């Protein structure tokens, strides 16, 4: 019996995506221009500002949706980078085995032991602040898990009849990997991808919270959380809203990823 798909999570995630992508279009405000002709800031909820404004007088709804966009964008791009590196690395190690495998996997072990935060700080010092760098930094670190899983799966596939048959038929390793092994890995890879996305969302939030991620006036969930944490007592909604969004995003992705993995492994 296959487990049921988590329709609630899928629906919630879809709703969030639609809101994040389309929401800002319906508002006359952008995420960076403050409205300063107000008698008092921040402005409370009104028809013009459905959630009010932040302490600088910028529309809170638009900023929240933009922060979801940026967090998701970082998550997608970084996950894809980690996917490409992880799958190629894992397949190569698993397919060739022996000494190649040992060297490649020891390298993975070494990279696992590099502390992440100092690594990112060093990167930002060397290359300056850029959103692109954030993608690369996170992607370059989070491929390790995928590489390990893919390697294990490849080793299992390596001695299956169809691979052996292809080898006997004289197919080049490159061709065997690309036409016989990788397509058979896709299920588990996609399942892990959906599990990588929430991890990356959290990592991005953590970096932005520290001020190492998205740079102002651009925002992300981490930036919104950092800003909200400062006003926790005077205006808790500034912390609660981005927190709820982050929890929803991460929960839904995890739930979907779990279900996909279970279906696949079962």
């Amino acid at each position, binding site marked *: *019996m296959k*487990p049921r798909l988590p329709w609630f999570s899928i629906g919630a995630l879809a709703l969030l995506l639609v809101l994040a992508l389309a929401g800002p279009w319906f508002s006359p405000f952008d995420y*960076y*221009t*403050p409205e*300063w002709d*107000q008698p*008092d*800031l921040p402005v409370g909820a009104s028809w013009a500002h459905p959630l009010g404004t932040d*302490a*600088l007088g910028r529309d809170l709804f638009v900023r929240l949706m933009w922060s979801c966009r940026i967090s998701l964008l970082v998550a997608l791009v970084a996950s894809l980078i980690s996917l490409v590196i992880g799958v190629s690395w894992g397949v190569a190690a698993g397919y060739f085995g022996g000494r190649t495998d040992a060297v490649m996997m020891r390298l993975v072990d070494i990279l696992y032991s590099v502390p992440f935060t100092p690594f990112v*700080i060093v990167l930002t*010092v060397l290359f*300056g*602040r850029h959103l692109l760098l954030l993608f690369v930094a996170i992607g370059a670190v989070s491929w390790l898990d995928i590489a390990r899983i893919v390697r294990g799966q490849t080793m299992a596939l390596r001695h299956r009849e169809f691979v052996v048959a292809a080898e006997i038929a004289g197919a080049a390793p490159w061709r065997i990997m690309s036409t016989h092994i990788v397509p058979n890995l896709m299920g588990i890879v996609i399942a892990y991808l959906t599990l990588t996305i929430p991890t990356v969302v959290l990592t991005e939030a953590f970096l932005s919270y*520290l*001020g*190492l991620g998205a*740079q*102002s*006036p651009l925002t992300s969930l981490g930036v919104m959380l*950092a*800003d909200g*944490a*400062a*006003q*926790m*007592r*005077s*205006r808790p909604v500034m912390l609660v809203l981005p927190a709820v969004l982050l929890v929803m995003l991460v929960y839904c992705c995890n739930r979907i990823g*779990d279900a996909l*993995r*279970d279906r696949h*492994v*079962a």
Partner: protein
Amino acid sequence: MGRRVMPPRIAMPVRIVAVALLALWFAACGNEQRPSGALPASAIAERIASGHLRRHVSSSPATLDPALIQDVMGMAVGSDLFEGLLRQGPAGQLLPGMAERWEVSADGMTWRFHLREQARWSNGDAVTAENFVFAWRRVVDPATASPIAQQMAPVAGALDIAAGRQPPESLGVRAVDARTLEVRLESPTPYFLSLLINTFMMPVHPPTVQREGRAWTQPGKMVGNGPFLLRAREINGRIDLARNPDYWDAPAVRLQAVTWFPLTDSAASTARFLAGDLDETERFQVEDLEWLRASLGDQVRTAPYNGTVMLGMNVRRAPFDNAALRRAMVLAVDRTLLTDQLLKRLYTPAHGIVPPLPGYDPLRPQWADLDDEARRELARSLYAQAGYSSARPLEVELAVPIGSPEMRRVFEALAAMWRMNLGAEVRVITEEFRVHQQNRRIGKLQFFWNGWIGDYPEATTFLALALKSNPQNYMGFDDPEYERVMAEAVRETDEAARNLLYNQAERLLDEQAPFLPIYFYQSRHLLRSYVQGWRDNANDLHPSRDLYLALAPEP
């Protein structure tokens, strides 16, 4: 199929009741969230009986060696452990410390200090004039590598010694006898006495420093002459001080013990204050001001602080090698909007880099009194004059250290002002603090954070930042006229004439605009009502010596 552990089945009614109880409990907690701010009377009585003051410091001092202290945290703790020729009284006034009296020569170049007979080190030795000579030479000696050797500049020969051109023995300080210290100055320095309360002017005990080397500031090894002794210190943690019975004015010291708790996060220090773990905190978040005032009343203290929030522009590099553009950037900032609407009316807008000081009124440039639209119009015309327009907007990065959410908000507001008032695109980039300091020093930055806290209540501590010879002149500002006016001001002994020269220097800075002043600092403390003897002062220095615990202040 993964294994799943099913939760134990609980009957529906039980679940509903449990959830309702939980919700009630949360609601009850929610009500407690608004603290009255008051501690129970028994807790207060206990605190007062202990005679132990628990203070907060915004981060652990990097060192407790008077020759090396360069941060306000070290200054706060150091002032409890050591005492200079003069000391700072509770209201910021200068009082006799190790010196009981002093006189100055007619030309204002030579000072003589007479040390008091009862001045003792904590091991019983007498504090002698030789100790001061040793300590001051040590500060300027390149072998000590003191980061603040430059501050000794008013003492004859200090800069040459710090630069390695002269031996430390050539410093203009001499022990006439054991209790008389003679100091020769480079030029008559009107603020010389206010320099003397700084930690780098405090004496050290030569035998201890020579015997222990760098380890001499450790608990058990340190020998001090201040009102308190170092009892224990945790790395990056609490610093415990106990009353020094050998202090010359020991009867006047009321506290039995003081503990300094370093806490970087001001939300955490506020929480610990509310929980009764701290009697005093340095700094709280501006966002919290309103509800803190509502719940704590006059236990919230804010006061003008001798410092300016400002930015610097590198005048040696494009695009800020253009004075019209620099001025446009200065004028385009809506300061009142920032301080009143966005920062809860805590700060006062700054139109120049020198805050109002006792005996000195800073220059108020003409543009400060223009109405908002006229000022913005002037800024736009300067921007156009510098060759920028909507077709060719200024694009520049503003580098700031990673700071509090409050500072982040200020920078975002500034960027929005430049965009809305000029059409300039300013990207704010945050850097780790040490990286930022480094980048600023090597002149890599065009546009950067340049906040400054004055070392003494006198205009030169700010104006000297624009002198060519100052290593902290990160703007690369170099103006012969400015150098001339400042040199003249240093020589001028008449206060009114000197203030005119300072105003003239300020006018030059306003025209050349290497700085972008934003607002003046305010000190902000939470202080329990049973802590007495506290007086707000512009140095924001509150030595524990003058504080005591009691229900009401004593006359």
